[in-house]
């Protein structure tokens, strides 16, 4: 670890948190229907859209209708995009005459993008037309908005008392897109364009003369716009197969930091927005502290492991010490121009914020770094993806408050609402579903030939590759450990299903919690209720996350990355 590296990391993180504060105020105003500075421009467009959709934005619905509408809209978009990809050979902007995407791969891809996962079994620029890429960009907007509005519905469930209606799905959905994702995506697309990312629809190839003097064709397309929303929406699906490891998506170290900024700022702002909307900022900052602690611990492990490097290589005579001309540490799968510090931050961030965009090969990380990346996705609440990170955090909070609340001698209360059987049922079901959908398909994959066929590396690393794939899918992250060949019928279907259920089952449970909470009276806080902020609450939430949420994955992690780590120390190699 170098001072410059630590400084780079601290600056990037500080800027994110500072920017998140005003953004959280803006978002709270948007969803409380209070005036914002963008009203003049957006109000007319928004009301026109709502008129076109015949939606009365003041007409709110109960949670069931809200959820149903959201799911139906998602399913509709899913079928549209599935068809576009399947029949892209009949559609415009396919100058390279790419054929339609095979059904299983299409199934996987369409589900992956509608769920904000962006797991990419397809070959990026090598198989998709510009039109198909833009169809995916469309889903990158809507999937981010979907997660966000469900979180907003949940927050309303907490703040409204003895009510029924959680909001109007269409109105919230359009607000999220028009007032958050579109304007910011435009700004950042322009910045990426300026920094060197290409943007085109009509051409898919660019002829260049490379360093050796030979002519070469490079794929181009709507890259800048995709890079901007893939990160702002924590989608992570890049234009290129290599994502941010392709210089067009991540032209320089500054854009690398900017990419991290785009991924993380909105999820952090959502935590703070939650505080503003509930009127309990201290509570939200405590949850922020929990998530930030977890993030910093994870980041520290990754960075120190990567900076330390592989003792095997040292034994073989490689120089892994940092010096003027040598970055030292573990540089396998990393870009020289980005360096270890920024790569570690990128990897820790992309798994924490469940973006899934990668600027390095996670497969090549040190075993314990790999474990941390998987663990971040297993938790899926270190700020997390759009809305769902907050939802997952609140699910854990409900479980924690229930157990700890009993210890105070009262029926547990959370921000004035009683936590009873229904809330416990849905919160634990969401947690159970998350673990079940990761572990069971994983167990099947390592037990059958179709699953084992995709593995690149033998030994515990191969196990980690499969574990990573299912964790990334269920957490709707979408990054891959690489190594694993996922484009087989087995993986396309099983990962597709894992993504699908991993996304919607927890969301259904969480919105159901909101539906139950919203009906309740609010019990006034007294000396008998323990405060939902401060060190004690921090300890309760952290303890729940680690003991109830994380312990489930201990055996799988022990046999994958941990075993690999100890084998490495003992000097054991797997062939």
């Amino acid at each position: 670890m170098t001072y410059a590296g630590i400084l780079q990391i601290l600056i990037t993180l500080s800027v994110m948190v500072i920017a998140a504060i005003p953004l959280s105020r803006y978002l709270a105003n948007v969803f409380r229907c209070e005036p914002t500075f963008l009203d003049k421009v957006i109000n007319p467009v928004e009301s026109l859209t709502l008129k076109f959709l015949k939606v009365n934005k003041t007409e709110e619905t109960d949670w069931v209708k809200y959820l149903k509408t959201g799911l139906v809209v998602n399913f509709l978009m899913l079928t549209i995009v599935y068809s576009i990809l399947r029949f892209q050979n009949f559609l415009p902007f396919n100058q390279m005459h790419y054929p339609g995407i095979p059904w299983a791969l299409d199934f996987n891809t369409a589900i992956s993008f509608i769920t904000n996962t962006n797991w990419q079994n397809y070959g990026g620029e090598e198989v998709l037309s510009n039109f198909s890429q833009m169809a995916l960009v469309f889903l990158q907007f809507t999937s981010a908005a979907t997660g966000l509005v469900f979180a907003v519905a949940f927050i309303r469930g907490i703040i409204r008392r003895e009510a029924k209606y959680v909001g109007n799905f269409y109105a919230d959905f359009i607000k999220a897109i028009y007032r958050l994702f579109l304007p910011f995506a435009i700004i950042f697309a322009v910045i990426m364009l300026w920094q060197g990312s290409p943007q085109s629809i009509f051409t898919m190839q660019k002829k260049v003369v490379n360093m050796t003097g030979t002519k070469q064709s490079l794929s181009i397309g709507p890259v800048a716009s995709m890079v901007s929303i893939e990160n702002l929406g924590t989608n992570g699906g890049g234009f290129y197969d290599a994502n941010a490891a392709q210089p067009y998506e991540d032209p320089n170290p500054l854009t690398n930091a900017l990419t991290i900024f785009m991924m993380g700022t909105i999820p952090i702002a959502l935590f703070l927005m939650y505080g503003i909307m509930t009127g309990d900022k201290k509570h939200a900052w405590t949850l922020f502290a929990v998530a930030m602690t977890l993030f910093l611990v994870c980041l520290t492990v990754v960075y120190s492991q990567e900076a330390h490097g592989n003792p095997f290589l040292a034994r073989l005579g490689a120089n892994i010490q940092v010096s003027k001309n040598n970055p030292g540490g573990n540089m396998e799968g990393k870009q020289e121009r980005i360096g270890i510090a920024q790569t570690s931050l990128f990897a820790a961030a992309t798994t924490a914020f469940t973006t899934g965009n990668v600027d390095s090969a996670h497969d090549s990380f040190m075993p314990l770094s790999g474990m941390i990346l998987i663990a971040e996705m297993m938790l899926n609440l270190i700020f997390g993806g759009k809305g769902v990170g907050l939802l997952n955090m609140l699910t854990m909070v409900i479980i924690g408050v229930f157990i700890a609340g009993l210890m105070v001698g009262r029926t547990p209360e959370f921000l004035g609402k009683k936590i009873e059987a229904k809330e416990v049922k849905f919160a634990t079901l969401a947690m159970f579903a998350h673990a079940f959908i990761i572990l069971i398909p994983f167990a099947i994959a390592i037990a059958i030939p179709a699953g084992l066929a995709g593995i690149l590396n033998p030994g515990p690393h191969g196990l980690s590759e499969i574990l990573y794939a299912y964790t990334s899918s269920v957490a709707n992250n979408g990054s891959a450990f690489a190594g694993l060949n996922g484009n087989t019928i087995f993986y396309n279907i099983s990962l597709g299903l894992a993504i699908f259920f991993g996304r919607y089952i927890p969301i259904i449970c969480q919105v159901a919690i909101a539906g139950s909470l919203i009906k309740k009276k609010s019990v006034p806080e007294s000396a008998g209720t323990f405060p939902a902020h401060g060190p004690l609450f921090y300890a309760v939430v952290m303890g729940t996350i680690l003991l109830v949420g994380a312990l489930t994955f201990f055996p799988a992690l022990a046999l994958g990355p941990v075993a690999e780590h100890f084998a490495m120390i003992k000097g054991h190699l797997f062939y």
Partner: protein
Amino acid sequence: MPQKSYYVSAFSKDIMLSAVKDSFKKLHPHFMVKNPVMFVVEIGSVITTAILIKDLFMHDFEYIGFVLQITVWLWFTVLFANFAESISEGRGKAQADSLRKTKTEVIARLYKEDGKEEDIKASRLRKGDTVIAEAGDIIPADGEIISGIASVDESAITGESAPVIRESGGDRSAVTGGTKVLSDKIIIRITSNPGENFIDKMISLVEGASRQKTPNEIALNILLVMLTALFLVVVITIEPMAGYFHGYISPVILVALLVCLIPTTIGALLSAIGISGMDRLVKDNVIAMSGKAVEAAGDVNTLLLDKTGTITFGNRMAVSFIPSEGVTVKELADYSQLSSLSDETPEGRSIVTLAKQYGFRGRHIDEKNIEFIPFSAFTRMSGVNILDKKEQVRKGAVDSVIKFAEDNQGKVSDKTKKIAEEISKQGGTPLAVAVNGRMLGIIHLKDVVKGGIKERINSLRKIGIKTVMITGDNPLTAKAIADEAGVDDFIAEATPETKMALIKKEQSLGKLVAMTGDGTNDAPALAQADVGVAMNTGTMAAKEAGNMIDLDSNPTKLIEIVEIGKQLLITRGSLTTFSIANDVAKYFAIIPAMFAPIFPWLSPLNIMGLSSPESAILSAVIFNAIIIIILIPLALKGVKYKPASASSILTRNLLIYGLGGIIAPFIGIKLIDMLLTVLHLG
């Protein structure tokens, strides 16, 4: 007060013996399914037993010692859980038996319309029948007195040996089956059918026969079932992972891991905690109609406390003598006592007592020389005439006594009048004392607040409970008492309607309200309150409306009830936390051990340094079983509870049961491992 309680110690020999028997009976799947966590353990035990038998017959003796030990300890785990439940139930049963003894078959004297009597068995009595009971008779069933008055010995129900007066009409007309008439004759209309009498209800309640799961218990059960399912998933994935490395893990080890991970500690003790919570109430002579009510007591935000009986002793007492000019305190005390000698009211007695402090005790009175003037509502005075001295001593309402003095050509100073006014303003009652025309001074009578009540109200405030004093007094008096007792609020000149309105108002704010009551007019409010404690001396209507009955009829009990409710929840939460926190150490014991043959380099995870894989797994299983037995007394007694703020209670319990729950098994498992190594069992 001689107290008899139905409380029986859980650890008596009889209960222990029958609990051991019951633990085996409860192995029947029919009982076990009710407790999903322990049912999973039972299924696991059956699986390992089957493997043991198979190994035995296949002459596969390599690991048979290990399999045998695991199997034995798994069965112990189930048995220990059953034992915990049986022992708590056993105590309830013993209590019920002691109640049942009072329920002997009696002959009722059925009173027919034609005025004739017929002797029938009490069990044949139906609602609406009329019976006669005379001195020496046992009242055959619950009922209401329709004519007559009698003193009744209710010790069978309440444990209180002093007889109580029961009479027709009003709030004292209810009689309970099984109690004994001591004097006079009453005619009773029966109000309950056989088997539905109060004593029957009480028996079934303490026996736990009608026990239903409480809302928090249901929620906790869901959590435990989901955690069990979660760890089942974890264990299912282990075999494929071992297979991936071309290894194999015995189902015995998988079962052992599963049992260690699922929350068996709390799963085993959960019902014992609930049952013993009810028992603790019985110990305090309170009968709760449902567990839900006990739980609600822990949640109460607002306590309505009747002033009389709860906050004050209920009677005004003399606290000081304030003489007029030219009169000594001693003189005033002397005459005050004289005037009160025949006054049998509590106020009068308190004056006599207070005067004793001035040396007037053992007074000799020549009865021929003295004439008692009883209190009358017309004169509003009482007193004595001392014939030989021609002294007329009067004590009573200030204006009446002033008039008496002035009628006897006396003069009353403004200062004395002012003192009287001042006492009234402070919420006290002034009584004036005069001899003929001479005004001696004022006796200050006061509603005396019970000792220690202020501290209790303070501790309630600390745990976030608001106290509201209810009184029929005027606002002035009420405020004085409220200030002295330190209650948060008070309602003066209260009627049943204002009580009801207050309860509804608090409830609309999301608060839970508890109150006590005894009269028929309290019944609607008792029913409306979330926790309504009816006094056993109260009417049938009040008892039916409330969800708890206090056999001691002590309204202060409400505070204890709240504490018991809280303790019940705290115990559940603490043991759940403990149970979950235990998993960390068990993982570190079992995971390296189970993968030792496949992955020898995972040994650094064996941070406890356990001697062998077999002894590591065995130690974890043994710890898991033994901890249940160790925690049974805690489950029955409840976690220690002291009123304090939520934060400090939580901090304490998190440290003990959370942090302690992480550390304790590391130590416990290591110790068991060392023991197994010494005994060559590992």
